[in-house]
């Protein structure tokens, strides 16, 4: 508890009193210095770290993609061998799915959700910090494996029996199974705290139907993570047991079933796509609303569509397995379910078109990325409907057509909106505007580059080029397109590089952003840019969906103490104030716990008994983390009628 910082405050100080600002600064301080860095628990620091780290992994994943393209630039290229190619192919997919997309979206949520709902921190700040360290450790470990030549080489889906110990001896796949299980801990902790923060900490008056659409999208994403990610954890644990203890889950000769792996993996893997796309849809709605200066048309329809996408995405994993010989009735069901997801997606797109219709659109860089999203995502969606049809899938399966489709969906559906969000919220995060000129160059290079890279891949697939191959023969008719695609990939990479340069130089070159440079309507723009550690000087009371566009000033919450970390708890549906919660202070324990859990996981790969050691060490860290700090909060109200002003 933060009581430790102010052990014997005789007179309580409230945040609406004069001079409370400097006390708030001190109360919510993140300790300075290198060692202090490991104690930070404030949502702003943790969210920012998630976003920056995920962008570094995005750059690394992109570099691996360029290496792959260099290998495929001409037939029978000898730049790299099959083994190394398979390692970087696996690492590219694993990085982009597990180490970029999910943490990036969660990081954005961690940074923005408390600001958007008008609170001062996430529900479980220490858990938040723990999740970040787990993510960082998992990423560093996997990349160390790559540099040591021990990276996994079976694709980001790790199909058995290829991923079994007979066909993939050594530690490569073990690194994959262990680190995937490990990093999912990070994703799950973030999901739970996002859910609780959104449901219990919304500013008074922010009923569910006044909640910003981006917050809705993060809520849906978080629930999807809670139900999808445990399945891949179970799958990877079973695979790890098969490899380490010779259990027989996926071994046909021992009564196991390789197809079980595909069921477990894709039951997670398909929702995973929407776990990434749903928050991106939230970004799209937010940016469109701001740059049209009007509320999104059909708020309820947009929200219900996101919820529907969340539900339906769990019912179509088998469309990844059409060619595995499953019963026809089952295949038909999954075709219908796959096509059905186009309905809520379409509803959203029509709502956005209706919002854009007749408004005076400001084509700033974030809006350009959103326009790019429309074009690219719709093409990806259309080829998705094609691939959901069994006869077509039988032909196109495991060809470059599918590579083209999935990149259209993922880059169009997640990366472009994420970059729109980056340009949109960067002024809030740093206090500086990103350069418009560099932003426009970046967008056009990415947009042209990605279309020139991936559109021809449809043709490559229709011409019969299989995916996941490290080279191909002469005279297959694929040379010219592959050469062209590789050149275009570099063009796209240059576009991304411009954005990275932009983010690095803008704080020094660009103008100060001010608190609300886009004249947006959601609460994060009410805070200073960048926000203080406590987000808001006063917690707001909400009475509309667009609090910053309403003419009347915002009312505020009074009676929150400035001398300890207090936040308001509100009811689930109506956001009526229920109580005040005291938040934990900075500490090393989350970092220590991440180390002990990491020790257990990594130790398992080399000596399974070390997992047991890590397991028990973790309990010491948890007890240290939860150890109640004296003085404890007083229980009985003092005579003056203020129940909590004094401390025991």
């Amino acid at each position, binding site marked *: 508890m933060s009581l430790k910082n102010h052990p014997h405050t005789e007179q309580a100080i409230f945040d609406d009193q004069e001079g409370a600002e400097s006390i708030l600064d001190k109360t919510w301080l993140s300790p300075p210095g290198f060692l202090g860095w490991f104690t930070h628990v404030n949502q702003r620091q943790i969210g920012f770290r998630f976003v920056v780290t995920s962008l570094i992994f995005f750059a690394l994943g992109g570099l691996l993609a360029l290496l792959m393209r260099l290998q495929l630039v001409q037939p029978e290229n000898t730049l790299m061998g099959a083994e190394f190619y398979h390692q970087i192919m696996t690492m590219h997919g694993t990085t982009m799915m597990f180490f970029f997309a999910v943490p990036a979206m969660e990081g954005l949520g961690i940074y923005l959700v408390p600001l958007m709902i008008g609170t001062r921190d996430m529900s479980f700040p220490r858990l938040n910090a723990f999740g970040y360290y787990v993510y960082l450790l998992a990423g560093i470990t996997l990349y160390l494996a790559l540099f040591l030549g021990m990276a996994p080489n079976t694709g980001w889906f790790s199909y058995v029996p290829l991923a079994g110990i007979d066909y993939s001896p050594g530690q490569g796949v073990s690194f994959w199974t262990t680190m995937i299980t490990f990093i999912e801990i990070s994703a799950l902790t973030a999901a*739970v705290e996002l859910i609780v923060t959104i449901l219990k900490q919304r500013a008074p008056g922010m009923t569910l139907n006044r909640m910003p659409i981006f917050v809705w999208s993060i809520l849906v994403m978080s629930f999807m993570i809670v139900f999808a*990610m445990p399945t891949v954890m179970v799958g990877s644990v079973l695979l790890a047991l098969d490899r380490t203890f010779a259990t027989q889950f996926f*071994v046909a000769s021992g*009564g196991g079933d390789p197809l079980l792996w595909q069921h477990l993996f894709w039951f997670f893997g398909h929702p995973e796509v929407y776990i990434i796309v749903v928050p991106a849809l939230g970004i799209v709605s937010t940016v469109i609303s701001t740059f049209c200066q009007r509320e999104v048309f059909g708020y309820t329809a947009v929200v219900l569509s996101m919820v529907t996408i969340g539900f339906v995405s769990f019912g179509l994993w088998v469309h990844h397995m059409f060619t595995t010989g499953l019963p026809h009735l089952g295949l038909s069901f999954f075709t219908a379910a796959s096509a059905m997801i186009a309905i809520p997606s379409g509803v959203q797109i029509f709502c956005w078109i209706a919002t854009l219709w007749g408004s005076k659109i400001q084509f700033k860089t974030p809006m350009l990325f959103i326009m790019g999203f429309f074009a690219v995502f719709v093409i990806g969606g259309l080829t998705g409907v094609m691939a959901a049809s069994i006869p077509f899938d039988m032909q196109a399966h495991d060809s470059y057509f599918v590579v083209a489709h999935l990149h259209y969906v993922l880059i169009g559906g997640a990366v472009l909106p994420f970059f729109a969000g980056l340009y949109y919220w960067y002024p809030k995060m740093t206090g500086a505007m990103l350069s418009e000129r560099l932003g426009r160059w970046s967008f056009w290079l990415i947009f042209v580059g990605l279309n020139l890279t991936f559109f021809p891949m449809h043709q490559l697939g229709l011409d019969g080029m299989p995916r996941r191959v490290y080279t191909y023969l002469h005279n297959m008719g694929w040379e010219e397109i592959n050469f062209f695609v590789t050149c275009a990939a570099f063009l796209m990479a240059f576009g991304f590089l411009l954005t990275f340069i932009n983010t690095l130089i803008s704080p020094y070159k660009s103008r100060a952003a001010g608190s609300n440079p886009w004249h947006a309507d959601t609460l994060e723009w009410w805070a200073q840019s960048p926000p203080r550690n406590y987000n808001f000087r006063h917690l707001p009371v909400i009475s509309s969906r667009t609090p910053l566009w309403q003419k009347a000033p915002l009312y505020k919450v009074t009676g929150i103490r400035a001398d300890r970390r207090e936040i308001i708890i509100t009811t689930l549906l109506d956001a009526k104030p229920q109580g005040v919660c005291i938040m934990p202070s900075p500490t090393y324990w989350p970092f220590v716990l991440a180390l002990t859990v990491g020790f257990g996981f990594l130790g398992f790969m080399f000596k399974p008994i070390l997992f047991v050691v890590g397991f028990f060490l973790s309990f010491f860290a948890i007890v240290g983390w939860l150890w109640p700090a004296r003085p404890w909060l007083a229980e009985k109200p003092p005579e003056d009628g203020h129940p909590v002003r004094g401390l025991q």
Partner: protein
Amino acid sequence: MSRNQQTANADIDVSNFSRHLNGQNAPIWWGIIGLILIELSVVSAFTVTYLYLYMQHPQWPPNDIAPPPLFIPTWSTILMLLSCVTMYLAGKSVEKNKSKGFVVYTFASVIMALLVLWIRWQQFDNFDMRWDQHVYGSLLWTISGFHFIHIVSAAIGTAAIGLFGMVGFYTKQRQIGVVVDTMYWNFVAFAWLPFYLVLYYFPRL
């Protein structure tokens, strides 16, 4: 002005609001529900995995292997469920500010869990099949081991709660730690039921 555009017409003063959040108004209560949902997904994935593999085999268990005996596991299941009662009584003691009762009931629950663990350990010795002989054995060992680890976690966590209780931390107003620990304890106890059914009854069908 539309319904969504109504404005609040006053500041809200929360200085007299409770700082002791003990039930559904405490974020940690919802956090534990989140943890339980995650674990439920894991339990479901294991159960579905068992049923999927069960359906792939005309003979289950294979090669005339006998299903594990029922008598002792049934008693350990009952013991596990009984420990929920002592945990409930521990919570009641906190509500009455009876710290001694709280400590006694908490450690009684931990001892019952240790007893369950000891019984389970004996069962591991008596399984007719190793984990690497056939997928049936893999399921038996993995699911039993998975739940075994969870009882260990719940026991250690509850022992820590008992320790905090001994230094006098828990009282009627300050009891959220006990509430959420009991929720998790109950979950661990009841999560055994689907496993008990598939591991001990399905091989007999």
